[in-house]
Each structure stands twice: as structure tokens, then as C-alpha cells.
């Protein structure tokens, strides 16, 4: 897409026209300067800056193409140089640097493109200045700044297409990629989407491959960098090798971290389709500034009307900020709306951060939103008419695609049926628990939303709910808040189940603690924020037991240190063991794993065959208090 010779600019307005009309794909623009910027710079540099450069800096801004720049005057994060800054640097680096030159670009390791400000107050020639040989006369590159820019625009070569990618990088790209590169992008995004441009400057593919090559974990060979997701990760398209069978994930967009992240976090799916990925990113970026403004207004209004003292009613718009390790990953504003008896969402945006899994902010914000829709009552319809996108946010639909759901992001609302599917996906239950919930829901035992809300509101943890549902038909009564305590025998059965589940929840949390240490040699507690050892579990409904796998450290809560040689631990949680429990534990014992009875702290020594006895840190009365709170939360929560 090079500029035709007939369109050679004669003034700054011509440059603007060419940039608007032709939109050369290999050329990117930065921020424009204000009059104040240029005046300050002129004063600081003690230069009379030619008028055509001032006009350029104030209307065009920073311009860059493959191997060339014309610096602007304003500070721009994407182009860390400004003409004023570069000139100061040049003067500092070389005291002999001519005082009447304004550095407007770099041409090589020791060559600068400089504007001669001593010639005329209106126009200045552009010189090629060698910093190391200032005594040699500088070569004239162009008579004027406009001429110099015109030459660069005219010479800007057309970007190469997917065919060139195959030729240059040895990759067969998915057919949607060419269309993705043609999508009109907002300026903020355009500089972060890598395309086949000449040279090795961003956003060229050459540059992106260079960045990818420096990743702590070498990327798979068939990845083509597409988009700078955040400061430390790239979105890459899964391509194929010429002559080879395309991989199963051909055409998907995955995220490659540049840092040494856990293996499970590397190469996570961002989208199923490169064109939809780029379109979603463009739509999200475009809506973001308006969303931020709306959020700021909502925060101000909320602080004025409610502050930290009063709890607002469901119809009051509440600002939500979701953070992970003090980094915002999602923001929203929503309220219950009586006009359609559902949740009205005005602001909803999420972000990808290097320390958070792909789409995790989106998933978590969706989970919060749907839990709120459930809690606040109504039909579970969620509308986005007043959102900046006026439609279901593209980021939400993108995450849904990766979760296997097809959410129409051309609609302004999530219907209750779609909300149900999304809630199930956002809750991220382990497969076995999900199957149990689905089976119960299919027979009308409980609603899917109810099960999800129980987990999202933290009433029961996944392992606790899994154990309850697997081990007893009383689980449904427990999820409805339990029977009346004055029907003692029935309530005691429920309470025993709840205690068993509660002890399992704490045990799992303990096993997941990193490095297996709760106390160091010095006696102080160690905690590694957000680090968890991945431990899986299976409920052995046959025995009222749970088998944990993946344990690499010593078993907690046992009188003697014991280590499992195959990494498994089978526990029978019992609030008051009976004579049957020790023989049952004996049946589950194998050569390698550890089998133990898990009881509250205040259970006396076991009688019967010797079985390791794990003591939970809490007594039964303490467990009961927590359980009573859970049952109350279940009673006042929506069914």
C-alpha cells in the first residue's frame, strides 16, 4: 500500500490527507503535541523551530515506518522519544553537536535525522548527521520536512501478506489471518497487532518473533505472534508447517508468556478464531475509554450517596472492582432493573494481566455478575443496552467461546437460558462434581444456578459439595438449609455429613499449601500468596471416603511424619468414628498410599485395628459454628 507519486505532499495538510486516505499499513502515528509543548521545547532548546515542523508536531504527531521516525514533541508512551528529548540527549552525548539542529529521528547506530533550524523560520532542511563525525559536512536528505516525510511515505513498501509469512517464516497461516490484518483498528491497538511489515521495528512480525525468541520457555515452532496481550505475553496464532498435517489447534489463538510461568498457564487458549479475536480486541479497545468514564461517574455517585456506611438496595447502581494481587482485572457497574426484572449492566470490562491466567478476569467478572443476577432475584436476564458496546461485551463472548459456549455478541442481552450455561461454565466445577450437579438438576433436585451460587458465594467449597452430593441423599436437604435441629436424630445425621465435608475442605486447603510447610524451622508461618500445589481428589462414595492424589510432602495432622510413596492419601472423615470405620479403612489400604481416619480435634483415641488418625485442628463445636453459618446462608439464599 505505497503512496502514489502523484500524491507527493507539499504541506503538512497533504501529509494528513495521505495518512487519512491511504492509511499506509506500515506507518503508525503517535500523539500530537500541544502549542504549549512546542513553545516549551523551543524555549528549553533555545531554538527557533521552523513553522512546518511545529505544524507537523501539532497536527500529525509522531510518525514511524520501517526503519525511520519523525519524532513528535508530545510525550507518547508508545514512542518514548520526542524531538526535544532526542536533541537534549544528542547535545549531552556530544558537546560539539550543532546547536541549531533538532533531532527528529534515528537513521542507524550513530546517524540521526536532524532538522536544520538555522535556515529559515518557516522551513528547515533535513540532514543526515553522523554523531561520531561532526566535523564532516552533513548530507542533505530533503530540502524540507514535508519533502522528507513525503519521500518516506512514498517509499513505504506494501506489507507482505500471508504468502510472505510462509515464505519468510516457514508457516502456513489460517485463511482468516489475512482478513484479520485488514480489520480497522483503533490507534492504541494498531501498534500492538503484529503484521508482516518490513524491518524489525514494532509492530512488525520480525520484531515480534525476536521478542518471542527471548521467552523464558521456548515457544512451539508453529506459533505466529499476533498481538501484544500485555507487557509480558503475546497472543499467537497456531499455524502449520508447510507439507505437514495442521495441528488440531490450527487457527486458534493462544497466549505465550515471556516469563517462566507454570506449564499449566502456558499456551492457554485465547480464542478459537483469529479474525474474531482481532474484532473482539478492537471492539473492546474502542469501548474502553467510555467505560472508564462511566465507571468514574458511578464511583463518585456511589461514594456520595452510600460511602462506606450504608448497604445499597438492589436497584442502586454499584461499581465493582475486581483485583488480583492489587492489580485490577475487571471493572463493572450494575443494578437490578425492574423494567425487565433482571440485571442491567452499564460498565463491564476486564483485562489480561501477566500474573493471571488467560481470560481469568473475564471469567471471574462473569461469575460475579451472574451470582449477583441470581442473588438479586429476577429472571436472570442480563442486559447491556447502556454499556459502551451496547451489546454483550466482546470479551465476555470471547471467553465463552473458549469455554465451549456460543454466546451471540451481536445481541444486547443474555437470555436466562444462556445465563445458566455461562454460570455453569464460570463456576468451573471439577468434572465429577459437574456431572453430579447436572444429574441432580436434570431430575429437578436443584437448579443449576443454585448449585453454582452455593460455590460462588463460598457457602460450600467444591470438595465439600462433591462429597455431600456423592455420599448421601441428605445433601439436598443440607443445600436447602437443613432440617430443624429439634428433630435431633435427623439433624445429627446431617451434621455428621457437614462436619465430614467441612474437615475435607480444610484438609484440601492444607494439602494445597506450597512446599507442604505451614511452619518453618524457626517456628514462623510461611505463606506464598496465591501459590497452590495442584491436588486432585476422587470421592469414594462406596466407603464414604476421599482419595487425594499429587501429594509430594508429608501428611499433615498425623502424630508421626508419614510420606506417601505414590502421592495418594485416602481419608475417611468421621465426626465420631464407629467400630466399622477402622476395618473399612483397612480395606482401602494398599502398599503405597496412606489411608487415615480424619476426625475433629476432640475425638478420643481410636479403638480397633491400627489406622493412622488425622486430627483436624478444630473441635466439633467450632466446626458446628461454621456449619450453622453455612446452613443459614443456604436458607436465605435463593433456591
Amino acid at each position, binding site marked *: 500500500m505505497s503512496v502514489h507519486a502523484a500524491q507527493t505532499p507539499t504541506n503538512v495538510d497533504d501529509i494528513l490527507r495521505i495518512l487519512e486516505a491511504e492509511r499506509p499499513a506500515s506507518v503508525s502515528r503517535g500523539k500530537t503535541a500541544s502549542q504549549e509543548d512546542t513553545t516549551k521545547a523551543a524555549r528549553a532548546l533555545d531554538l527557533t523551530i521552523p513553522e512546518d515542523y511545529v505544524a507537523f508536531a501539532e497536527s500529525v504527531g509522531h510518525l514511524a515506518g520501517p526503519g525511520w521516525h519523525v519524532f513528535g514533541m508530545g510525550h507518547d508512551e508508545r514512542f518514548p522519544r520526542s524531538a526535544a528529548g532526542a536533541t537534549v540527549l544528542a547535545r549531552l552525548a556530544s558537546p560539539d553537536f550543532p546547536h541549531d539542529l533538532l533531532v527528529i529521528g534515528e537513521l542507524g547506530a550513530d546517524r540521526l535525522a536532524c532538522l536544520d533550524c538555522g535556515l529559515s523560520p518557516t522551513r528547515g532542511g533535513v540532514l543526515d548527521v553522523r554523531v561520531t563525525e561532526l566535523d564532516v559536512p552533513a548530507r542533505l536528505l530533503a530540502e524540507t520536512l514535508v519533502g522528507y516525510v513525503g519521500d518516506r511515505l512514498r517509499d513505504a513498501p506494501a506489507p507482505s501478506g500471508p504468502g510472505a509469512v510462509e515464505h519468510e517464516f516457514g508457516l502456513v497461516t489460517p485463511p482468516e489471518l489475512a482478513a484479520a490484518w485488514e480489520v480497522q483498528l483503533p490507534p492504541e491497538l494498531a501498534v500492538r497487532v503484529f503484521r508482516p511489515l518490513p524491518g524489525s521495528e514494532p509492530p512488525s512480525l520480525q520484531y515480534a518473533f525476536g521478542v518471542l525468541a527471548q521467552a523464558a520457555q521456548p515457544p512451539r515452532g508453529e506459533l505466529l505472534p499476533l498481538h501484544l496481550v500485555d507487557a509480558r505475553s503475546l497472543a499467537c496464532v497456531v499455524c502449520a508447517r508447510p507439507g505437514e498435517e495442521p495441528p488440531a489447534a490450527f487457527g486458534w489463538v493462544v497466549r505465550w508468556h515471556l516469563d517462566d510461568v507454570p506449564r499449566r498457564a502456558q499456551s492457554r487458549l485465547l480464542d478459537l478464531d483469529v479474525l474474531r479475536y482481532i474484532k473482539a480486541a478492537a471492539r473492546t479497545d474502542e469501548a474502553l475509554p467510555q467505560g472508564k468514564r462511566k465507571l468514574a461517574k458511578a464511583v463518585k455517585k456511589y461514594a456520595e450517596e452510600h460511602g462506606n456506611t450504608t448497604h445499597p438496595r438492589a436497584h442502586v447502581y454499584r461499581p465493582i472492582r475486581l483485583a488480583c494481587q492489587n492489580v485490577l482485572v475487571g471493572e463493572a457497574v450494575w443494578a437490578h432493573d425492574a*423494567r425487565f426484572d433482571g440485571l442491567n449492566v452499564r460498565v463491564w470490562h476486564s483485562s489480561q494481566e501477566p500474573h493471571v491466567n488467560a481470560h481469568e478476569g473475564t471469567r471471574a467478572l462473569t461469575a460475579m455478575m451472574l451470582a449477583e443476577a441470581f442473588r438479586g432475584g429476577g429472571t436472570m436476564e442480563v442486559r447491556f443496552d447502556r454499556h459502551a458496546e451496547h451489546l454483550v461485551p466482546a470479551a465476555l463472548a470471547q471467553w465463552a467461546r473458549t469455554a465451549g459456549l456460543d454466546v451471540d455478541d451481536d445481541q444486547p442481552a443474555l437470555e436466562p437460558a444462556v445465563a445458566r450455561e455461562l454460570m455453569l461454565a464460570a463456576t468451573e466445577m471439577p468434572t465429577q462434581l459437574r456431572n453430579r450437579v447436572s444429574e441432580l438438576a436434570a431430575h429437578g433436585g436443584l437448579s443449576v444456578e443454585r448449585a453454582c451460587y452455593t460455590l460462588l458465594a463460598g457457602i460450600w467449597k467444591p470438595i465439600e459439595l462433591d462429597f455431600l452430593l456423592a455420599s448421601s441423599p441428605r445433601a439436598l436437604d443440607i443445600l436447602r438449609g437443613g432440617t430443624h435441629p429439634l428433630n435431633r436424630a435427623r439433624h445429627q445425621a446431617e451434621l455428621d455429613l457437614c462436619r465430614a465435608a467441612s474437615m475435607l475442605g480444610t484438609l484440601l486447603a492444607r494439602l494445597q499449601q506450597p512446599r507442604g510447610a505451614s511452619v518453618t524451622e524457626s517456628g514462623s508461618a510461611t505463606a506464598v500468596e496465591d501459590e497452590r500445589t495442584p491436588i486432585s481428589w476422587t470421592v469414594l462414595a462406596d466407603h464414604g471416603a476421599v482419595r487425594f492424589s499429587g501429594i509430594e510432602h508429608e501428611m499433615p495432622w498425623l502424630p508421626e511424619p508419614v510420606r506417601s510413596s505414590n502421592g495418594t492419601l485416602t481419608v475417611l472423615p468421621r465426626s465420631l468414628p464407629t467400630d466399622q470405620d477402622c476395618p473399612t479403612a483397612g480395606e482401602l489400604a494398599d502398599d503405597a498410599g496412606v489411608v487415615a481416619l480424619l476426625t475433629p480435634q476432640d475425638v478420643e483415641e481410636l479403638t480397633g485395628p491400627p489406622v493412622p488418625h488425622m486430627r483436624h485442628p478444630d473441635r466439633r463445636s467450632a466446626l458446628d459454628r461454621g456449619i450453622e453459618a453455612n446452613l443459614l446462608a443456604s436458607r436465605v439464599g435463593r433456591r
Partner: protein
Amino acid sequence: MSREQGVVLFFNERDWNERIAGLCQQADQSFRRQLKAPPGERKEAFRYGLLCEQVRQETVAMRSTRLVVLKDHELRLLDTAGPHHAWLRADELLQHPLGRIPTVATAMEDGLVALEVRNPLARGRTAAPSVDGEELPPAPTWRPEGSDEDAPPPKLRARDAQRQLWEGQLRRAAAGEDIPLVPSNITNEVLTTGLRTYVMGEPDTRVRARVVYRDGSEAQAFPLCGLQLRDDVPPERRVLRFALMSMRHPDMDCRVDGALLRNRLVSQTRPAAETDAAVYELAAKKLKTVVGAGPTALWVYQTGLQSAVVGFYRAVTDHLQRSPGTLTVIPCFWRGADKFEEGTPWTS
């Protein structure tokens, strides 16, 4: 496979009295206090649970003289028997649900105490939950009457939308459709006005509409269409002004003679249906007392706890049906600061 096992253990009464009777006595006191407690109040129930757990713990160390294993249908019978202790003395055999279990009744002798114990994680096949229905469908979307269901919601004030939602439910329920009234998220004025409109009708057209709160709890049905109400306040009546609940808006304190309901008893964390029931019970008693001194016009300055409003007007409706002409209730809705607006009187 884990299944629930229920056993009844028999202990020598002398041993029982030595070691456990004191605990049982305390537990029994808690049990009785809990029975008298207002709906949702569980402090005594929690204490009762702890005492029962101690009883169970003590019996572990005692030797039982005999044991009866309960069958599944016997467990179900006991499950549905309502509040009862887990222990049984010989002289309570006829009143206690355990006495209805033939094997227990046969084994029971003078000088023995029986204790029912459940082990929910005994070996055996886990029974499937007793549900055999169909999946609950997602709720249909809702729009105010006359709006296109596929179009974005119309521009309406929140209160107007609430009115349409509430009155739509009332209209359909009054017409005999089996749809519940859902008072949650509806302002107290809209609730009261809607109920006032739809409680009117001939006595033989009375309908009992289900009331379901958003927390899933279902309250006592509301009687619709059974009252003949007039719009004016009959003269020559004793006038009383009450806040519906104490401590809600101190601004109204200078206008009222007292509060009908204590906030402490009503505003508790519990299912909304239990609050509704508690308010109904308290309000019914208060209304009876109020009209005891003759026909009364009661100005009720009310605020927005939905379950309290529904419970109160259920009590008013029942009262007007039972004792027409004795009571006039004039609702007063708070309008901010010290302003109140009178609603249509409830009088028959």
C-alpha cells in the same frame, strides 16, 4: 458404598441417670425454650445441639445392653415425626416417635433408656436423592404489559415497572392461575396498593395466592378477592397512629403513638417467609388487642421491609374477614424527611 444407618441403643437407666441425665435435663430445657422462640431464632437450638452431642459422646464410653437396627422405612418415619429428642425413657413410649417402631417398642423395658443414633457414612449403597421430576426450566424473560418481549425494555420509572410486575402477578393469581406472588424488590407502597386492589371481591370468590420470596422461601398463602372494602374512613372511631416497625425512621416518632412491631424481632437474618410468619403472628395479636377497646382507625406509618408489609396486611385481611367493621387501617407512606402520604384505607 456409604448409606445412612440408624440404630437404637439401649442403656441401663441407672447408668444413664448417673452419667447423662443432667445433660438430658439441660437439653430438654433448651428444647422447650426453642419451641417458644420466634421464627428464625436458633440460639437455643444450637445449644440443644451441643448438649445432644455431649450425650452422644458420653454414651460411646457406656456399654449398651441391646441394639436395634432401624430399617429404611422406619428411618423415614422418624425423619418426618417432627421435633423430638433422640432418647426415650420407658414411660414416654406412647408419646415418643420411637415408640411407633415395633422392634423398639418390643425391646423397651422398664429400667432401660433408648437412644437413637445415625451414622450417615456406614457401608452400603448410597441411596439416590428422592427426586424424580424434570429439570427446572430457565425463567422466561419479563416485560411490562403491552411491551414487545423481544424489544429492549421500555423507558419507565422503576416504581412504575415494579407496579406493573406486582399487579400483573396479583391479577393472574386473582384469576385463579397458579403463579406465586413475589414481593421481593417491590416498594412498600406498590405492595400495599396492589394488595388493597386485589383483596376486594365477593366472599365466595376468595382465592389463596402463593407467596414466594426471592430467597426461595414460601410463606403462607395470601387471601385475595374475599373482602368488600370501602374508600372512606368511618366516623366515630378511636384513632391510633403507629409505626409499622420501631427504629426504622426516627423522623416519624413525633407523629406516632407507638410501634406495632419491634425491629429487633423482625429484622433478623432468616428466610423472608419466616419473617413474614413472625410478623403475621405478632400483628394478628396486636390487632386483636387494639380493637378490644372498640372500633379503631389505625394510621400505619410503614417502611419497606417486604416480608413485614405482606405479613402485616395478611393479618389485616384475616382480621377484616373475621371481624368486619371493627378496624380501619390507613397506610401512610414515607416520602422522605418528615413527609408522609396517606394511602387508601382498608376498612370493611
